[in-house]
């Protein structure tokens, strides 16, 4: 599959969502010379992973994750904008206000594609809420200027309920970059990959199997 995109905007709520969710796809775009901007909703202030062994605490975590996010965006070579919301609270904010905030940013950047979470199928309430606000924001843009939206579903039942995603990116050529991006989120990576033992397990093989494809549904407005 190949694309001709002008600019891609990725909208996720947490530092590391871009790494686990879309870093292969982002790398593919960057290698084609397509500019990518990551609008990151929060600093993951309320995350549970404090490193293993722990090196962060509830009060230092925001700064730790902010630095990791900046590092990850350097690895991916993407522009970063931090939106300044607070972890775990996005679903309680006004959907309308977040949508207007995002709409302003999207209209300035003028992307041809927006990548976000599939509302109702994104497991974490922040994912669902920001995905819904992002889609609402794009919906409010007049049709002739409206970018496409790729929505990412991670719920267990998304295949049953939504069918096969129409976009499936084989990210195996970009796998090294994906691992580098995940590992830039030092405090979080071990929480997800930490059950693997780097001495005995072939981490790349395991992760490739777990993270081999990135899939999205084209949103139908």
């Amino acid at each position: 599959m190949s694309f001709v995109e002008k600019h891609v905007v990725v909208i996720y709520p947490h530092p590391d969502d871009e790494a686990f969710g879309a870093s292969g796809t982002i790398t593919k775009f960057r290698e084609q010379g397509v500019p990518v901007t990551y609008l990151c909703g929060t600093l993951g202030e309320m995350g549970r992973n404090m490193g293993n062994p722990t090196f962060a605490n509830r009060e230092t975590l925001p700064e730790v994750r902010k630095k990791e996010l900046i590092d990850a965006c350097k690895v991916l070579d993407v522009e970063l904008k931090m939106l300044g919301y607070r972890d775990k609270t996005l679903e309680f904010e006004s959907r309308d206000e977040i949508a207007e905030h995002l709409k302003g940013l999207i209209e300035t950047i003028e992307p041809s594609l927006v990548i976000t979470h599939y509302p109702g199928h994104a497991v974490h309430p922040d994912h669902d809420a920001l995905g819904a606000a992002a889609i609402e924001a794009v919906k409010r843009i007049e049709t002739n200027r409206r970018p496409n939206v790729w929505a990412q579903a991670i719920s267990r039942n998304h295949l049953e309920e939504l069918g096969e995603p129409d976009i499936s990116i084989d990210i195996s050529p970009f796998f090294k970059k994906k691992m580098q991006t995940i590992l830039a989120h030092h405090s979080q990576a071990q929480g997800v990959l930490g059950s693997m033992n780097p001495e005995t397990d072939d981490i790349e093989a395991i992760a490739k199997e777990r993270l081999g494809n990135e899939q999205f549904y084209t949103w139908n407005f």
Partner: protein
Amino acid sequence: MEQITIDQVQKQLERFLNKDVYVHLETTNGAYASHNNDKAYNVGAFIRNAQVNYKHAKIVGSGNAFRVGLKLDIGWIYAEGLSQYEVDDNDRLLMAGHDREGRLMVALEISETPFTY
């Protein structure tokens, strides 16, 4: 953070007696508990920058499991499962309990100035 010892933390708790302080209290098993295990429930609660003034405070427990109770004029603040503590650069008392993978399960923090919000 370091392992809690009752003597050290008791002294720290008493440092804030009869002062207007800000409290962060939290417990969580993560937003993915029921995603990773369909028999599990997602449970969590937090309150950030509750302003209180406590008259009496005590830490109880041993090993890796301590409980802290703060007695207010008309109520209590309680946290269970605390194992580590730290007095940070802003003189705040941070206490927390983590699981085997280093994930936070409970936190109780006390400060004379508001926590960032």
